[in-house]
């Protein structure tokens, strides 16, 4: 849970005349992300004239405004009020969705990419999975895999490119996995590669450069500019900050079945509407996470 000492560090900063960056803390935690979300949801509900974008981020949030409609300093004042109203967000109830994300662990495509860019890696003789397991003190890669799939993740932020989701695992700080990024970024990463960099997971929405460690392949899209799948009919991306992602390991047969459903445009993400109560999670992280997953399995 966020302490009062950490809150003193909130920084309000103008990005030119059109942006306000609010850095709630320098360190990442579930608590600070809940505060960011709680403030952003309140700000959305106010629907202030002149507010163009509200972008929740990991330990911060970013607002774009039209200074011809609202003065940046007046908006800053309003944001400070919201921060005070939200406090430590312990009474915040996040209305959200838990969504099933099928992953083929240690798949042939990312394995090939890892080999191809071995010269840019800290330990070229290890796979990314072996490296991430070892550096986090897991006795085997299977133990690392079990930790990744054992607890769901918060979608703490979207960005970099459209539809890229930062995932932060809902485990206490002492169990957080941190993985260094590549020494030099790859120039190529397959679309839908499932990866880990720093404290965060990401699925690459489109093919391109990347520096996160590659762990597997997601069966389902994170970005679709053609909006073919029902989940993407309204927008190019499906996930929102505040969603909960349950990465679930699938075998090759299930992976291929899901790919076929994506190809024939019948696939829909399995999900359940849930309420995430931060205080309940602080009190009992494992029990709360397990209950969330049960909601998804029962849906």
């Amino acid at each position, binding site marked *: 849970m966020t302490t009062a000492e950490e809150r003193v560090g909130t920084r309000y*900063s103008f990005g030119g005349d059109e942006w306000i*960056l609010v850095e709630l803390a320098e360190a990442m935690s579930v608590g600070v992300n809940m505060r960011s979300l709680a403030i952003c949801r309140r700000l959305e509900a106010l629907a202030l004239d002149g507010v163009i*974008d509200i972008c929740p*981020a990991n330990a911060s949030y970013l607002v*774009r405004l039209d200074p011809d409609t609202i003065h940046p300093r007046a908006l800053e004042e309003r944001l400070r009020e919201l921060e005070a109203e939200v406090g430590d967000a312990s009474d915040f109830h996040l209305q959200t969705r838990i969504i099933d994300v099928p992953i083929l662990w240690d798949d042939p495509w990312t394995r090939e990419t890892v080999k191809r860019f071995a010269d840019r890696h800290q330990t070229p003789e290890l796979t990314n999975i072996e490296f991430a397991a070892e550096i986090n003190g897991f006795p085997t890669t299977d133990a690392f895999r079990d930790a990744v799939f054992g607890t769901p993740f918060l979608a703490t932020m979207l*960005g*970099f490119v459209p*539809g890229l989701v930062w995932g932060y695992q809902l485990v206490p700080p002492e169990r957080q996995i941190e993985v*260094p990024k590549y020494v030099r970024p790859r120039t190529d990463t397959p679309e839908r590669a499932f990866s880990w960099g*720093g404290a965060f997971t990401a699925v690459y929405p489109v093919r391109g450069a990347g520096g996160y460690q590659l762990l597997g392949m997601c069966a389902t899209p994170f970005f679709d500019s053609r909006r073919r799948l029902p989940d993407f009919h309204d927008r190019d991306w499906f996930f929102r900050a505040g969603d909960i992602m349950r990465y679930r390991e699938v075998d090759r047969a299930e992976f291929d079945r899901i790919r076929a459903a994506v190809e024939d445009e019948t696939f829909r993400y399995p999900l359940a509407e849930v309420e995430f109560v931060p205080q309940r999670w602080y009190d009992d992280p494992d029990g709360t996470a397990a209950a969330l997953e049960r909601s998804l399995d029962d849906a």
Partner: protein
Amino acid sequence: MTLEILQPGLQTTVQDEGRLGLYAGGMPPSGAMDKASYRMGNLLVGNPDGLASLEITYLGPEIAFRDDAVIAVTGAQMTPKVNGEPIANWRSHAVRADDVLSFGFIESGARAYLAVAGGIDVPPYDGSRSTYTLCGLGGFEGRALQAGDVVPVGTGVDGRAGLDVPVDLQPDLGGDTELRVVVGLASYRLQPESLETFLTADWTVTPDANRVGYRFRGAELHFVEREQPAGAGSDPANVVDFGYPIGSIQIPGGVEPIALLADAVTGGGYATIATIISTDLDRIGQSKTNDHVRFREVTLEDALEARHQARARLDRVRALLTDSQEHAIG
């Protein structure tokens, strides 16, 4: 109405005011890099605000008009020609079906705008006709124009030839320039002397300068050493990933600052230290490789005042041209 691309130039894309309101999903606004020149183009040909134009980068295209049209070229000076005869920038011209528009070498600035009465009429995507090539969406099939493309032009706007933007109301055209910045964001990560260096150094635009961002060379900067907070990554230039404002400047590894522009990556883990004010985004859009720039710190109030002045100038152009057009119709 249509126009046909005979030669595409280096990079010619459809752009407008940009795609707003989707930043939280990681969608950058795209849109014209030099909005002042783009907007004055629309005013010259009698277009309502927000219609799409062609943004022409560094090297001009060759374009055949398939119908009579009224056009204007604004922004970078790269001598436009109709059937080989030079025509004036910042002025509306009538062209006839089968006339061919071409361009000379670039003399100043980096991006010219071709406005056509009626606007470039590609289908809007999320409320904008701007091209975002990185994800292949918007504009003409999500990409820069190619030879053979037949580009639709809207109807219903009767532009009038012979209107000018007076020289004193034309925007500056980049080149060696000063860019005003508001210092902040994660500037606390920089050592104070390095912030001073950032604001006094002579920076050169590198070849790595496009719609996503511009990279500069000129000095080395140093970050405050610290034990990195949870989730920030090990490099002192890293912070816990956050949102990047358009115009924000980051310094990966302490060398070669990068200013993020219209097609920006919208967030990440590099400490950003300052933001180019919205008015001066136009000017960086008109600078090119090997141009020199300096970053000058201004206050938020200065930034708002600059914005106010830029808008007043556009309003004067609007009043002048609208008045001329009404007289023409009357």
